């Protein structure tokens, strides 16, 4: 496992490449975003360490959303897709053995959640979550169905593009990231106020997974590729010395 050394400081987060915290087009963000500046300082052991999860945690169907809800008894309804990629840090080092969790709507655009009342039906064979650990090269894969787009209460007629939510730990608490993967060619991306909380088009494009026919399996599933970059660690020979020394 390519472990980073403990106590190597994290590269400061470049907030300019992230979404703006407050965006009037995404109404809920207006009352849920801090008004005052964040307190910025170099990372400490609190952020440089983090929880570790082992293979004992992961069940054999955990990364197969087509089968995990029914324990393999019946497949979920929808277009079968493989979603795969690599988790690496800013210095392109693989992030090995890290937990990747995903959740998504079913093929009709409905979540299995008490607060989702959309009229599309639940699929009795689909739960909507999965998890896996990255391998030694930082790779992960999920087998799932393509989630449907769905309307949501924001402006009168806002629709979320097809998307899969990703949660990634990395090796330290300061690397923690939750994001969303979109699908190449979806016209709703350009109309989505949540996607457009990211003001840099180049950065938003990094959340759009391309169709990856090299990993599609004939007569079985299409594939999409989604790589994830987490904060890196500074590694110079001058680290861990008192300031000014």
């Amino acid at each position, binding site marked *: 496992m390519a472990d980073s050394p*403990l106590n190597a400081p994290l590269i400061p*987060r*470049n*907030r300019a490449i*992230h*979404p703006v*915290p407050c*965006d009037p087009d*995404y109404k809920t*963000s207006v*009352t*849920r*975003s*801090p*008004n*005052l500046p*964040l*307190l*910025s*300082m170099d990372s*400490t*052991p*609190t952020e440089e*360490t983090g*929880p*570790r999860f082992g293979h004992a945690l992961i*069940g054999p169907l*955990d990364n197969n959303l087509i089968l*995990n809800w029914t324990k393999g008894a019946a497949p979920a309804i929808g277009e079968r897709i493989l979603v795969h990629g690599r988790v690496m840090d*800013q*210095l*392109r080092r693989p992030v090995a053995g890290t*937990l990747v969790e*995903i*959740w998504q709507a079913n093929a009709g655009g409905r*979540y*299995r*959640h*008490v*607060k989702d009342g959309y009229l599309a039906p639940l699929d009795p064979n689909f*739960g*909507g*979550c999965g*998890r896996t650990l990255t391998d030694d090269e930082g790779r992960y894969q999920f087998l799932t169905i393509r989630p449907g787009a769905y309307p949501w209460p924001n402006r009168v007629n806002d629709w979320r593009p097809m998307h899969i*939510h990703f*949660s990634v730990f990395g090796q330290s*608490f300061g690397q*923690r990231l*939750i*994001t*969303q993967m979109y699908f190449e060619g979806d016209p709703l991306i350009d109309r989505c106020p*949540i996607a457009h909380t*990211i003001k840099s088009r180049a950065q*938003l494009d*990094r959340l759009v997974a391309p169709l990856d026919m090299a990993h599609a399996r004939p007569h079985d599933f299409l594939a999409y590729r989604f790589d994830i*970059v*987490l904060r890196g660690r500074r590694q110079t020979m001058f680290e861990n*010395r*008192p*300031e000014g020394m």
Partner: protein
Amino acid sequence: MVQKLDWLDETPSQTAGPYVHIGCIPTFAGLAGIYPEDLGLSPIADGAEGEIITITGAVFDGTGWAIRDAMLESWQPDAQGLFTGQPGTHPKVSGFARFAADGESGEFSLRTVKPGSVALPGGGRQAPHVALWIVARGINIGLATRIYFEDEDNSADPLLARIEQRHRVRTLLAKRTAPGQYRFDIHLQGDNETVFLDL
């Protein structure tokens, strides 16, 4: 032109949305059985050394409403100030927990061991604290803050010392309400806006 740097920008964040529970705490979300149990149910196991405490609170939006759909994660050292992964950590303290605001009241609760102070590599120590990470619908990038304790010596903590407006320090101090019981409310905006961190 200059030479090209080959490091990458981070993948941008997106909101965890209102259904974060499905992916992170599915049993809580009503998907019981998909995993044996939710991740991070407790940061400690039976036999953890130190004072067992319970911290309760809520996350308030800019209108004063306790938000019902937040998910929180906590990360902390054991009572000696050692984090999991460091040599000598107490085996019954994982230090990591996940918990959600209650769907009806917005209240959250964390039962844990009171953390020890943490040695800094350059010398000095951080006062005892629990790191918090808060995600929810409308939060576009997870919010980091820390729970310190009003009944500890916080005078030499380097992070608290960086807060210019000294009256804001109290937004990071859990209040002791009874033996072993603390209250820690988080205000996303307003007069009591919590100090959020970028480190």
